[in-house]
């Protein structure tokens, strides 16, 4: 789960990381009042969960409260990469002498937190990594010991930080690591970390991505979820314990197991279709899960056919078929269905679907199922 810049920076501040003075506004008038209160030039920053806000015109300077109001009015009316701007952060404008990068990320390969610093801040770190990897210095503290001061010093000296800033930098690096660990982050980034005209270090922009698996023990953080981060259907799925991701194709997919669900999407694409969603209904495929899943899929108006791909293991195919038929009885779908049930009692499961009151095309192989679903979505005769 992603946090907004203002939420991330508030967390950083709790760990002793200096952030600009500022507050969130939801109306132009509020932005004006905040700017007046700060009494100096401000930066108006759109709070949306996508990158490239600056390039899209979503981050702008304002010299007076009047200008702050006007700028906030424009930004609050914007959409950035499809996301409406509902909030702006009104921050004091810092005088920037140099821009650095300091970030921490879950390093899967080394199974540790990697802390990275660069003298090239203010740009995407992936860009720096691609262009001049030697400008990124990385340390990977032992998970049972955490970040030590020498780690921070080696980052500071490694990026050529003037020595008068090393002590403050060390504090910030420790705070960042602690914030990462205590909040179960997978990414925590200060970009840029600025050296100001007053020779101070300041976290001008911040970003935190949280580990979804850690949210259960951080209810306060879970409550920060931005409803714009997921579609209403995705939210409903999450609340029912289903994994659902909306895509822009026309073949609805209902599958048990994440790997099989991805593979099913791949096969649909391989045979000329395009998947409308990723959906994992879990191992058991119980009737009520299936019903919720069907409602979600059919709630997407782009869906022109549904492909059901279930492997029956400990849950038998005839049980799955029964669950599917019960769910269809309740939901009454108007689009063609192609179902492939494989595994334990597959013949019985297939027979039940073929004899059902609904027109369900059955398939024996995944390729066969994908071809039938693609044809059905195009309104062509089913092969």
């Amino acid at each position: 789960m992603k946090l907004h810049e203002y939420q991330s920076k508030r967390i950083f501040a709790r760990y002793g990381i200096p952030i600009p003075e500022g507050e969130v506004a939801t109306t132009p008038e509020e932005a004006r009042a905040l700017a007046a209160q700060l009494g100096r030039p401000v930066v108006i920053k759109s709070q949306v969960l996508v990158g490239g806000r600056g390039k899209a015109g979503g981050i702008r300077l304002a010299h007076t409260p009047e200008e702050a109001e006007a700028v906030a009015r424009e930004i609050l009316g914007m959409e950035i990469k499809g996301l409406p701007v509902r909030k702006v952060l009104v921050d004091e404008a810092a005088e920037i002498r140099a821009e650095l990068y300091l970030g921490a990320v879950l390093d899967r390969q080394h199974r540790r937190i990697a802390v990275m610093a660069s003298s090239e801040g203010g740009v995407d770190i992936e860009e720096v990594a691609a262009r001049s990897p030697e400008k990124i210095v990385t340390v990977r503290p032992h998970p049972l010991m955490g970040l030590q001061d020498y780690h921070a010093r080696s980052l500071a000296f490694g990026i050529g930080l003037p020595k008068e800033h090393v002590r403050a930098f060390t504090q910030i690096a420790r705070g960042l690591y602690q914030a990462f660990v205590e909040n179960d982050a997978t990414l925590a980034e200060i970009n840029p970390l600025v050296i100001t005209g007053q020779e101070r270090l300041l976290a001008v922009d911040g970003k935190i991505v949280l580990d979804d698996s850690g949210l259960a023990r951080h209810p306060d953080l879970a409550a920060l979820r931005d409803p714009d981060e997921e579609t209403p259907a995705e939210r409903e799925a999450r609340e029912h314990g289903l994994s659902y991701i909306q895509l822009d194709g026309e073949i609805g997919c209902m599958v048990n197991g994440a790997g099989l669900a991805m593979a099913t999407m791949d096969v649909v694409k391989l045979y000329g279709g395009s998947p409308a969603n990723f959906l994992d209904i879990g191992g058991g495929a119980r009737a009520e899960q299936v019903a919720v899943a069907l409602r979600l899929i059919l709630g997407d108006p782009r869906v022109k056919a549904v492909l059901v791909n279930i492997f029956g293991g400990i849950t038998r195919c005839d049980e799955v078929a029964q669950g599917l038929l019960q769910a269809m009885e309740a939901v009454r779908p108007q689009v063609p269905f192609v179902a492939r049930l494989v595994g334990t009692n597959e013949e019985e499961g297939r027979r039940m679907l073929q004899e059902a009151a609904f027109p369900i095309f059955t398939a024996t192989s995944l390729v066969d199922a994908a071809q039938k679903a693609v044809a059905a979505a195009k309104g062509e005769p089913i092969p």
Partner: protein
Amino acid sequence: MSILVGKETRLVVQGITGREGTFHTRQMIEYGTQVVAGVTPGKGGEWAVDNVPVFDTVAEAVKATDANTSILFVPARFAPDAILEAADAGIQLVICIAENIPALDMARVRAYLETTHTRLIGPNCPGLITPGQAKVGIMPGHIHTPGHVGIVSRSGTLTYEVVYALTARGIGQSTAVGIGGDPIVGTSFLDVLQMFQEDPQTEQVVLIGEIGGTDEQRAAQFIAEHMTKPVTAFIAGQTAPPGKRMGHAGAIIAGGEGTAAEKIAALRAAGAQVAHHPEEIAELVARNLA
């Protein structure tokens, strides 16, 4: 032979008296697995699933029954504790089924396990099975058949698919290992490939990967440098959008890294055959036998 589990496996089930624990213990016993003990704190001295003795701690269970392998049916929030308890009791192989364990917990657990002789499989995995000998997991046992194809996979049902298709063709399996779909797991593709390469029963290997991370790329490097047995691979998630977690916590393309395309390219370059879709895997394996 086969790897990791077999006739010599003496299994302790942590969380044996819970619903899942009881259900799957029965299934494992029916398959022929030697389940020698269960552990549920506070229920020591009782019996579970007909005649399995229950202990309060793993250490007691090991002392009384010489258990050497453990499987955990405990909720995610208790799983790190249970893994460490098993390791400190001297269990050699721990299998963790639970999903949604925070990644940083696993980073700490893994770091600790490196100071012990315990190997962890999972979390977020179906477990592993050596057909005809021992099933230590939640997979449907009856679809497997003993044979010479080693399987290693990040996905549950996708593995069952492949096993089912192999068995239907009369092609048996040596051991099928589900290493789990989380970003940090106890045992990697590389570890299992190494074991299959050394296992005399295994004649060829199926590797089922997915988007996210770079574990498949390191597997590819090992295949290129050390594998003499043929490897058939499949990577799920070719159509997955970047930045979205596709069910498994580990299945996410982050910072442009971990795409299916780069994994497939690495595996092909290493000399593995890469199937276009899951059903092609059994076909390619059969062709190696022809």
